[in-house]
């Protein structure tokens, strides 16, 4: 998938809502307590991919927005539980060097998790070929060679004049 495809992702797959519902049902008696926050979470979940980084926002009463830049990403984890695999979805977790063991950003409910992971990988630090180390600008050697030739000619002239 081209980067434009990734930039176009703003919402999770509708399957995520079903995953949330199944998970809540599996908690048994906690279903009534958990179901509303999860539905709201799904309804308000927004992703934003741009040239510099990723933004994730969700929440109605307590609105949360996180944004991290690609170059600050430390680890990329792809996790897929059984229910997610049944729906063909996956979660990409991205971590920075901040002091938490939980992922800073979880991009849930994507069918394109593999493409997204590859996309993030190529943009994270160390994922692409390192820029060439600082070198003398192109053509410096040629200029230096010219200076040398010039000096050589100068000396030759001087020696010739002295000889006369």
């Amino acid at each position, binding site marked *: 998938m081209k980067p434009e495809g990734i930039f176009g992702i703003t919402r999770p797959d509708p399957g995520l809502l079903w995953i949330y519902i199944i998970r809540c049902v599996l908690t048994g008696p906690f279903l009534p307590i958990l179901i509303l926050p999860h539905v709201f979470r799904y309804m308000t979940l927004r992703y934003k991919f741009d040239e510099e980084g990723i933004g994730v926002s969700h929440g109605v009463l307590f609105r949360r927005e996180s944004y991290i830049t690609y170059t600050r990403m430390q680890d*990329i984890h792809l996790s897929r539980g059984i229910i997610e695999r049944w729906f063909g979805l996956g979660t990409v977790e991205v971590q920075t*060097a901040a002091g938490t063991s939980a992922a800073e950003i979880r991009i849930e409910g994507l069918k394109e998790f593999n493409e997204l992971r590859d996309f993030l990988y190529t943009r994270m630090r160390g994922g692409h070929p390192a820029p060439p180390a*600082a070198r003398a600008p192109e053509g410096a050697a040629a200029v230096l060679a010219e200076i040398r030739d010039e000096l050589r000619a100068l000396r030759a002239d001087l020696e010739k004049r002295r000889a006369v």
Partner: protein
Amino acid sequence: MLYSALRTAVLRILRLPAGPPEPPPGGTVVRIFNASPKYLRYRLLTVFIGALVGLILSVLLLFGALAEGGLLWVAFAAETLFGAAAVFFGYFTARLDFEMRYYILTDRSVRIREGVVFLRESTLTFANVQNLRIRRGPIQQLFGIADVLVDTAGGGSGKPDSDTHQGAGAHRGAIQGIENPSEIRDLVMGLLRKFRDAGLGDPEDHARSGPTEGEPVERMREILAEVKGLRMALTR
């Protein structure tokens, strides 16, 4: 035979991918490897101990039932059935976990796939690696295996050695259950060395040492020689 048939069925139900994961794009793959078969034996040890405990309990219940009868027969049957199922399940998951475990080293990163019920693939680039070490517990030593831990920056709750169930903490890739930990460690070290700015150090510190090598310097020396000669020629 039974195992492979069951395995195919379980893989389909759990929607588990059978082959190794895709290597990260862009780099060249240095090595793809699995955990050692000894790691499977190490994992099966706990299943074996559990089976032993269950067996002893079953035998005790059987003797009790023979002597007293009644409810103890029900307890014996339930314990034996439940125990057998648990042992079978333990064996199956341990073996599947071992078979589904993949480690991929490319020239730029390491990718670790693990887990059966909860599948997890961690990708860490070498440019972000802070720390590399080998961990080997007494029982692992007995089995002749060890873990290579690849740490990146970032904290978290828990002790340095603690792992989640999956074997990897948040900022860590754990290459678990391999026989040649020092070889893998050195291999990763060698790959790491290519990233002079690996970790959180300031890349500007040493990467910007300027044009001090190669052709330009040679040319400068020649110019120096020329200028010296020029001066000699003038002052003669």
